[in-house]
């Protein structure tokens, strides 16, 4: 009672404002409840039977499978369902700080393998890809562990990269026979049939997964002392930030095929994913640069004074501190990109928003945009709101050390 009087009815003016606002809210709410619940139609054989009543939730009831999974073969919808669950599990597990070590690698390997196996149904790994992976992993290991690994370990990495190079070279001249490692438990479903929530989640998750390391490299490159690297990174970041995502997507979908030799096509989904990665990396780079600049100069100098190499300095001293500072803006960027992925609809990829749009076109059910968009908004809200709550949790969690 006291709180009410103090905050809502402290004067005549405030009292009237409170009453008027309460009435307005009540009126809106009663209208909404009437529309969305009381006079709503929950099941109907077709859109025509919904007319003249409140909300047509029968439309959602009829279309929800299409909205969630798009043109994926209807009788196999359990596959995208479990793919989405696998991705959610992967994301939720990696949100836990106790997992932030080598386990993360396992979670993502298993989660990604499950997701793509379910979505594609079959994964064919050609010999070239195996050699290529050996090369990348070997080279990556050799560089990343250069100063910390034992000589034997380094040599093992080098040997792996060597096998990759040798294998690729032999494949190229045709000495090594082509073979394909096939894992094929289900029927193959190509990316052009993917749609709905899995597409949105894959574009956002893997777009950001690849954009993040690229962004770190760009941010470091931008602060590099080597003029060539610096100008390249600045050029890339400014170029990408200077154009809208839509133009990049149109470039990838309309311009690129014209430059390729005729008959050679690159998967449309992959093109969109690359465009998202490039775009996100430029923004992430700028966020991370903010973190780098917030570190006191003393940190850099202290690391130099200890005789650490550039690589050790960056990975052991600078980045852990810089990344901690930028977690809130990073998550902000992630939320933005989760929603931005819906722009792929302009190049004919059926993400979640676009399948919702599609549901409106079916002539049998046309004419209920409000219901569909409310539903889509609700799903997007669930994702974005949980991300924002997580960011808040992370902020308090990581600032425990600095709080008094």
């Amino acid at each position, binding site marked *: 009672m006291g709180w009410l009087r103090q905050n809502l009815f402290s004067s005549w003016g405030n009292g009237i404002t409170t009453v008027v606002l309460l009435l307005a809210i009540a009126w809106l709410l009663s209208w909404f409840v009437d529309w969305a619940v009381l006079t709503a139609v929950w099941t109907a054989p077709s859109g025509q039977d919904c*007319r003249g009543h409140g909300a047509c939730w029968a439309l959602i009831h009829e279309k929800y499978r299409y909205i969630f999974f798009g*043109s994926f073969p209807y009788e196999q919808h359990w596959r995208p369902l479990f793919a989405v669950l696998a991705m959610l599990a992967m994301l939720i597990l990696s949100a836990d700080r106790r997992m932030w070590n080598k386990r993360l690698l396992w979670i993502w390997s298993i989660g990604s393998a499950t997701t793509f196996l379910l979505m594609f149904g079959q994964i064919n790994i050609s010999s070239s890809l195996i050699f290529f992976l050996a090369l990348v992993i070997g*080279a990556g290991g050799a560089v990343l562990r250069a100063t910390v690994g034992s000589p034997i370990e380094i040599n093992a990495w080098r040997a792996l990269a060597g096998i990759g190079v040798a294998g690729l070279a032999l494949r190229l001249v045709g000495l090594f026979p082509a073979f394909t490692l096939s894992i094929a438990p289900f029927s193959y479903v190509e990316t052009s049939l993917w749609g709905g929530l899995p597409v949105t989640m894959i574009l956002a998750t893997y777009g950001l997964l690849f954009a993040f390391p690229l962004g770190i490299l760009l941010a470091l490159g931008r602060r590099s002392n080597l003029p060539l690297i610096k100008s390249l990174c600045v050029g890339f970041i400014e170029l990408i930030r200077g154009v809208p995502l839509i133009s990049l997507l149109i470039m990838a*979908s*309309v311009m690129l095929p014209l430059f390729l030799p005729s008959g050679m*096509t690159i998967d449309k989904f992959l093109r969109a994913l690359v465009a998202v990665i490039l775009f996100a990396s430029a923004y992430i780079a700028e966020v991370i640069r903010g973190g780098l600049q917030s570190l006191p100069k003393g940190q850099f100098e202290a690391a130099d004074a200890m005789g650490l190499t550039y690589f050790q300095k960056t990975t052991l001293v600078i980045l852990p501190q810089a990344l901690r500072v930028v977690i809130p803006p990073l998550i902000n960027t992630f939320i933005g990109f989760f929603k931005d992925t819906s722009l792929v609809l302009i190049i004919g990829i059926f993400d979640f928003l676009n399948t919702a749009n599609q549901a409106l076109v079916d002539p049998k059910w046309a*004419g209920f945009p409000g219901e569909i968009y409310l539903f889509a908004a609700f799903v997007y809200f669930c994702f974005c709101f949980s991300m924002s709550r997580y960011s808040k949790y992370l902020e308090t969690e990581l600032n425990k050390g600095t709080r008094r």
Partner: protein
Amino acid sequence: MHKASVAAAVGAVALFASGSAWAGKDLDSIKARGNLICGVPTGIAGFASADSQGKWTGLDVDVCRAVSAAIFGDSEKVKYVPLTSQQRFTALQSGEVDILSNNTTATLQRDTALGLDFTAITYYDGQGFLVPKKLGVKSAKELNGATVCVAPGTTTELNLADYFRANKMTFKPVVIEKVEEIRAAFFSGRCDVYTTDSSGLYATRAANVPAPATADDYVVLPEIISKEPLAPAVRHGDQQFADIVRWTQYAMLEAEEYGISSKTVDDMLKSDNPTIKRILGVTPGMGKALGVEDKWVYNIVKQVGNYGESFERNVGMGSVLKIDRGLNKLWTQGGLQYAEPIR
């Protein structure tokens, strides 16, 4: 390390670039691949839309199904690639799709400069007028002084001005960009008339009239003031494939003209009429000349239906859109759909 990264980049490009140069002819590559890749619109009611099971249906979709039935004997061997209007021509030029059945108006520029070949016209569309019935207007000639809702920067807007000037009438344009907003403005009474392609008018009338009004409270006027012939397009260079696409449309029209429908086609096999025998391949020769099976028309009609069936099912009286056949009637019934004879 630099060499390694160059090798990595080359490897990455080689890995992700799938597919190889095709064997010279579109038809050969379609047959080798075992399916037809068909570029459809990203959703136009009645012409191409995905149903609740994610299956594509519509008039544009039926074109692809019929071509697939002609080539493979199976109307389901089609892969649909939804394309926006910006992407569609590039997708066809670059070989991403074999055929564009995308609600595309055939024009000289597109036929020549873009290197496309338009085959037979599958739907004669044209700009029309939608008015509320309570205005009591029977003809577009009575629209002098009307307020007209129209989308900006399109040929629609120019056609409208031309038509009113030619008939010495005046009008007040209400120019609105987004189609949902145009509809809202029209149904709320901000303008007396809504003008766009007549298929769009019928779709609006069928599905967007706000309650308590019904579709019967609005009429599409009989005047059509522009030509929008919609036709499937293929790339220049493979005349045989273009022939198959063109004759698939003619076959559907011929079937309707001779009363062959998906229900009667089996009985028609026993017909004595020499024309029907030729069409259905009872007298062999036609399919062979085209480079497909002799049973090609049988397969099309049995699985997809004749033109009339496809029209009624997708956009006509059997659908929600209830579009009058108008110009799309057979020539024998006063329309423009006139197929070259199969003989």
